[in-house]
């Protein structure tokens, strides 16, 4: 049976990656404007991606930068 929310769920990743065709994008947005259930989940996915990126970002140890510079060809 055709379920617009299932279809919208399938479009979540390509929508956020901006790889849907114009027609598909309009279709997704049309559904999102009318469906609070899906709109909530799309907004969550956006926050999640940002949260994951920040959570796993570890600054480079300062001494590594010095070690890399030392690998340069001597002038």
């Amino acid at each position, binding site marked *: 049976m055709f379920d617009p929310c299932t279809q919208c769920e*399938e479009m979540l990743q390509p929508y956020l990656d901006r790889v849907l065709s114009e027609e598909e994008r309009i279709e997704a947005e049309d559904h999102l404007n009318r469906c609070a259930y899906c709109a909530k989940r799309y*907004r969550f996915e956006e*926050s999640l991606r940002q949260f*994951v990126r920040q959570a796993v970002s570890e*600054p480079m140890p300062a001494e590594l930068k010095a*070690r*890399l510079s030392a690998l340069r060809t001597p002038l």
Partner: protein
Amino acid sequence: MSPETDARRIAEQERDRVRFEEEVLELAEQVYRVARRLVSSREEAEDLVQETYARAFRSWSSFTPGTNLRAWLLRILTNLNIDRGRREQRAPDTQPLEEGDYFLYNKLEETGAADDEERVVERLSQEGVVHALSSVPHDFRDVIVLVDIGEFSYQDAAQILDIPIGTVMSRLHRGRRILKQELAEETVGETA
């Protein structure tokens, strides 16, 4: 070629090399951030970045100016990583039943108040995310790390990993779903 022309050519080459090395060093922070999630420990990531830079400095003349330097470096890095034998662990043939993209949100909603989706994300912990990502099989994780963490395009990720762009897309799609299942397990303690 006259000695003067020769000397000028050498001086130009030298200038190009110095500029190349400076540009490469400016990217170190970004290269490390990706490397850190491709391997399991900080020490391993540091070694890998160091080897990558040693090789990049040695083979600078093989870089085509005007192309993506960050992708070129990551290509060296992933090749070195494969050479190190890290690839022995392949993605298992059988994966658990794959849940859809709403799975994590639904799980979080089931187990607590979920009025505001931005607050829902706060129920995840930093350590939980790091652990969940490390639990994703390598083939899927590599693509997630390059695209979602390193912010490489599908095309760049395909070149870096030497796989077709369609494979990048399918692994990314599936990998993100696996990551969400891992996160659900980390956070609410339930598997699919």
